């Protein structure tokens, strides 16, 4: 199409005939896209933080249990062939670290009350390779060596509820493998606070050998292996592979352990795209208005073009291209500015501590680090082009409806 080039040239130059008017529209598009991208980066950053802190405190990248654990969670469901599972799991690409644990639901009681808790028996050296609970310490120590009265690591909300301080004694009741209730006294060794107050209210960590003795299992036995894997995506592949190697163990990636973390991602993407679509549509009405004005101003010129032989297809195309230019020029600028502002604020972070208490209940940090969201840029560009294309149809249709005789006569 030899004529394409000249038509595109005319459309592009027409765009800048009224610099202020076009500039305002381009600026509106730039700012709109900037806002969309910043919102996307903010939400994605917040969500990633939520997921990451869940993964690093109580979900892990993957977990292995004995078959039936998901339904029963009973104390005798120890993982069979533990050594073999661990050996195999280390061979699958993506493995970073693992920690074996004993886990049982029981009761914690002080003279101020009693609460249902999950008691986790952990090897401190191993566990810190997978989870970062030791970094959540706010008082005391993370599981020091056993003394006469063994030490426990207790969530802040639980400590408050039972009025415990570092050094206070309290009683833990569990069930042993024979089905009998068993009790022991623990001293609070340290108090922690994660981003999830729910977790802090219901979790006690003790040393694995203390727990093994209490429930009557071998100290090397485990109910659970938690894993650190190289990435969230790889964790899903990794879990699939391990699962097919050990059909009589329950192998779950983080997405199966905590499906709500994955849903949040999908839901957020959907609502962000709806929001972006609405913003860009609002701006497109401005584009429509600008183009209708431009066509009204240039009707004699358009009449002349049609009189001298520019056909309707070309005229239509010319107006359409100008409209799309008007919409599209601001998009790359908006994406660039949005990207840069995300990088800048991703380094500095956004302090939301004024509403931070509320956020904790949802498992979120008070300081949000927005992250760059290149996966959204193409989608935004496509929305801009599709939307302006749609909005270009009416001005283009208006322009070919002009009657050249009348347009020229109206001197």
């Amino acid at each position, binding site marked *: 199409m*030899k*004529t394409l*080039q*000249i038509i595109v040239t*005319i459309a592009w*130059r*027409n765009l800048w*005939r009224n610099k202020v008017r076009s500039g305002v529209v381009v600026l509106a598009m730039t700012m709109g896209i900037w806002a969309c991208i910043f919102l996307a980066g903010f939400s994605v950053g917040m969500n990633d933080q939520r997921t990451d802190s869940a993964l690093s405190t109580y979900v892990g990248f993957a977990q292995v249990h004995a078959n039936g654990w998901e339904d029963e969670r009973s104390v005798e469901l120890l993982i069979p062939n533990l050594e073999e599972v661990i050996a195999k799991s280390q061979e699958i690409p993506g493995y970073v670290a693992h920690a074996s644990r004993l886990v049982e639901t029981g009761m914690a009681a002080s003279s101020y009350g009693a609460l249902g808790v999950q008691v986790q028996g952990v090897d401190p050296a191993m566990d810190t390779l997978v989870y970062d609970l030791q970094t959540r310490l706010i008082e005391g120590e993370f599981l020091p060596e056993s003394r006469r009265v063994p030490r426990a690591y207790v969530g802040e909300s639980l400590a408050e509820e039972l009025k415990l301080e570092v050094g206070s004694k309290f009683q833990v009741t569990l069930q042993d493998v024979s089905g009998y209730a068993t009790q022991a006294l623990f001293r609070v060794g340290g108090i922690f606070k994660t981003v999830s107050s729910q977790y802090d209210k219901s979790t006690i960590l003790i040393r694995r050998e203390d727990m093994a003795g209490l429930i009557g299992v071998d100290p090397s036995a485990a109910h659970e292996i938690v894993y650190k894997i190289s990435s969230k995506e790889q964790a899903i592949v990794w879990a699939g592979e391990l699962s097919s190697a050990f059909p009589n163990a329950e192998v779950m990636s983080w997405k199966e352990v905590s499906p709500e973390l994955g849903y949040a991602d999908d839901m957020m993407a959907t609502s962000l795209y709806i929001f972006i679509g609405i913003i860009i549509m609002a701006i497109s009405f401005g584009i429509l208005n600008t183009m209708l004005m431009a066509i009204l101003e240039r009707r*004699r*010129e358009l*009449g*002349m*073009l*049609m*009189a*001298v*032989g*520019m*056909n*309707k297809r*070309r005229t239509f195309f010319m107006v359409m291209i100008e409209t799309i230019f008007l919409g599209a020029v601001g998009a790359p600028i908006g994406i660039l500015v949005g990207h840069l502002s995300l990088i800048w604020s991703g380094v500095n972070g956004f302090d939301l501590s004024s509403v931070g208490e509320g956020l904790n209940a949802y498992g979120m940090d008070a300081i949000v680090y927005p992250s760059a969201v290149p996966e959204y840029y193409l989608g935004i560009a496509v929305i801009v082009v599709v939307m302006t294309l749609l909005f270009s149809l009416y001005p283009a249709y208006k322009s070919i409806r002009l009657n*050249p*005789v009348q347009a*020229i*006569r109206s*001197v």
Partner: protein
Amino acid sequence: MKSTETVVKVENLRKTYNADAVAVHAVDGISLSIEKGEFTAIVGPSGCGKTTLLNMIGGLDRPTSGDVYVQEVSIGSLSEGDLIDFRLKHIGFVFQAYNLLPVLSAEENTSFIMQLQGKSKEERSQRARQLLKNVGLEGREGDKPAQLSGGQQQRVAVARALASKPNFIIADEPTANLDSHSTSNLLDIMARLNEEEQMTFVFATHDQRVIDKAKRVITLEDGKVITDEIRS
């Protein structure tokens, strides 16, 4: 008697506007033919139907009845889309104003029409430059219309009209917005093109200077031809 070639034939042409239920016969039964190489002025008082007649000859407007034949082709039989292509190939236009695209240079305005015709780049730029030279605008090829005087703009319009190698050029009041110097300059150029290249021009005009140059003068009144005078 010299041999002639008819470029436009008009047969019993009528155009009736039904303004406010009172029928206005803007063109009221005109038959005439225009031969190659003519330099014709259509004259008459305001409202006599000059523009209406010219628009129908140029295939811009449809007659109420009768037909226009250009190169034996009945314009009335062409669809709207075909008519646009027909104008592109066969008819050159010079209007009173708004002839040029303000965003294109003089050369681009001239070569644009050839681009619509699908001519090659070399042919376009060579011909556009030659035509601008012919209308005395050598050196001004890169200027935008806003940088040119009204007379210069009309000369670009003439170059543009010639660029498509039309069968004839129609010009509705081409000098109405020009001072007398620019008018005589433009007329000289068109007369020279008429002499040297046998280009056919049909004007609608009030301008006595145009009428003085014309080889044929057709006078209209109330949509009818009153006199049709060929000068030697």
